[in-house]
């Protein structure tokens, strides 16, 4: 028996610090990942995502603090940790002159897999590349290469999967495929994936950890992060009969802080105090005045807005806009 069958947590990180010379890449990082979770690791480039992953995979030790993966300490039992994780680095580590099957067999052997052929077969089936088993990797498209990279990470059936930017550089269809694959893998593995693409997190992860300058700035489910961050709630209202009196009238309702006209075709955004749903009051008034309600819905702060709010300090606003570029890719 190994330690990994005990304990609730697949990953426990305590007071983790990492210095590169003078520069501090991680500042007192603390988090845990439960078995079976898919944790999204979100942050701008250079926030410390890759550094954290490299520590968790035993690639390099932390400067101070401790991390346990699958029950093993990364500093003291590095080899045990490495035996229990599957890792897909950001630059997919492929030997371009090998065939897919040979490459996977090599990785499986390196992980001391007993039945190499069966493991390779299984991994190729999971990521759906069996038809390319005998193709040389340099002849494969980017999407296929990514799948080979994931196959490599799961070939030895690790407890924990660590995926660094698993969808980077893929086209939208491939991104969807890889995300579906990750969700499917999440049924059997604990997964940490890093990304700076936000829809990825809301679509694949059960929990999000936002990291900035080596520190965790938020930690929750994608839904709660979206809901809980705002100081006020917003309601979107669209009416058929446009009248100038509408904003003034709406502001008379208790709890309504402000009303803003979005467009002349009768769309308004109503800001209300937190935790008091005013939709019934608004609907009642609209019916009473005969405005003709076309749409009435709460507006959640998108994960993007949360992310920007958390990871942006005012002087670096411009720099931080980069991550949102890729948010329209589906």
């Amino acid at each position, binding site marked *: 028996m190994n330690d990994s069958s005990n304990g609730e947590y697949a990953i426990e990180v305590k007071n983790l610090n990492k210095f590169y010379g003078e520069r501090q890449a991680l500042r007192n990082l603390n988090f845990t990942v439960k078995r079976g979770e898919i944790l999204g690791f979100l942050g701008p480039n250079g926030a410390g995502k890759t550094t954290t992953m490299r520590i968790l995979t035993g*690639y390099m*030790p932390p400067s101070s603090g401790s991390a346990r993966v699958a029950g093993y300490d990364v500093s003291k039992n590095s080899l045990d940790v490495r035996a229990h*994780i599957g890792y897909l*680095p950001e*630059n997919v580590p492929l030997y371009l002159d090998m065939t897919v099957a040979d490459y996977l067999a090599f990785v499986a*052997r*390196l*992980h001391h897999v007993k039945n190499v052929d069966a493991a390779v077969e299984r991994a190729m089936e999971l990521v759906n590349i069996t038809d390319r088993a005998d193709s040389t990797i340099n002849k494969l498209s980017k999407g296929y290469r990514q799948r080979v990279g994931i196959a490599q990470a799961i070939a030895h059936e690790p407890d924990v999967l660590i995926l660094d930017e698993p969808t980077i550089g893929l086209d939208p269809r491939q991104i969807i495929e890889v995300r579906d694959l990750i969700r499917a893998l999440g049924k059997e593995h604990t997964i940490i994936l890093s990304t700076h693409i936000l829809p990825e997190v809301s679509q694949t992860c059960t929990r999000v950890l936002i990291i900035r300058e080596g520190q965790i700035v938020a930690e929750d489910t994608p839904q709660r992060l979206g809901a809980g961050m705002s100081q006020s709630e917003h309601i979107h209202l669209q009416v058929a009969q446009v009248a100038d009196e509408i904003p003034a009238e709406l502001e008379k309702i208790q709890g309504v802080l402000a009303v803003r006209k979005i467009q002349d075709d009768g769309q308004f955004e109503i800001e209300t105090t937190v935790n008091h749903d005013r939709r019934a009051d608004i609907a009642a008034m609209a019916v009473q005045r005969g405005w003709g309600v076309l749409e009435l819905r709460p507006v959640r702060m998108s994960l993007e807005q949360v992310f920007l709010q958390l990871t942006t300090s005012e002087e670096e606003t411009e720099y931080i806009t980069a991550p949102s570029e890729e948010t329209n890719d589906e």
Partner: protein
Amino acid sequence: MNNVLTIAGRELRAYIVSPLAWIIIALFAFFTGFIFVQILVASRVADLSPMFSWIAVLALILTPALTMRLFSEEYKLGTMELLLTAPARDWQIVLGKFLAAWIGFAILLVPTLWQVLILQRYGEPDLGVISSSYLGTLLLGAAFVGVGMFSSALTQNQFVAYMIGMIILLFLWVADAPANAMGQSNVIADFLRQVTLPTRFQDFFSGVLDSQNLLYFVSLALISIVVTTLVVSSRRWR
């Protein structure tokens, strides 16, 4: 040991599919054959020892080409991260690569065995000298492969790796030149004379087995393996 063999196996496979390895084998076979004929025609003596001196020169030029990709390519492809996060120790990775390249070096010598057969057929060569020459060449190969592997671990640029390896070997080759200029009783000069390559392999080629020479090549190979392991491990404290 399993890890070492897994790594070595992949490296040998990589040699087989790489055009560079075949070019090196072809060049080596061509030049040794050419030199063999020249020497034989000129001397008409069934003696391979002049040829082995040339093999050493060829090894100086071609071994760094054989080893330059060992680590540089892994850095470039990003596969180093795969190896270093696999349950294998750094020294096992280094040793696996060393073994593969050394076996590759030994394969270079296979075509020259043909020349031994020719001498056997038409003359009476001293098989003892020939055996010690091959032993010397294999030991020299281990040292050259070690130095080449070390320089490959320093950079992701294969050409730079080749040049560094070649420069270190060239320095060892001519180390006695500055020593002689320095005079007789000088600690540095003595050291430089000790590390000079040609005096070490010439004994083997004339059939003299000296444990000091054996120790020299084995130490050079071992030091290379240890230092390369340190380079690979340096990510931990950088």
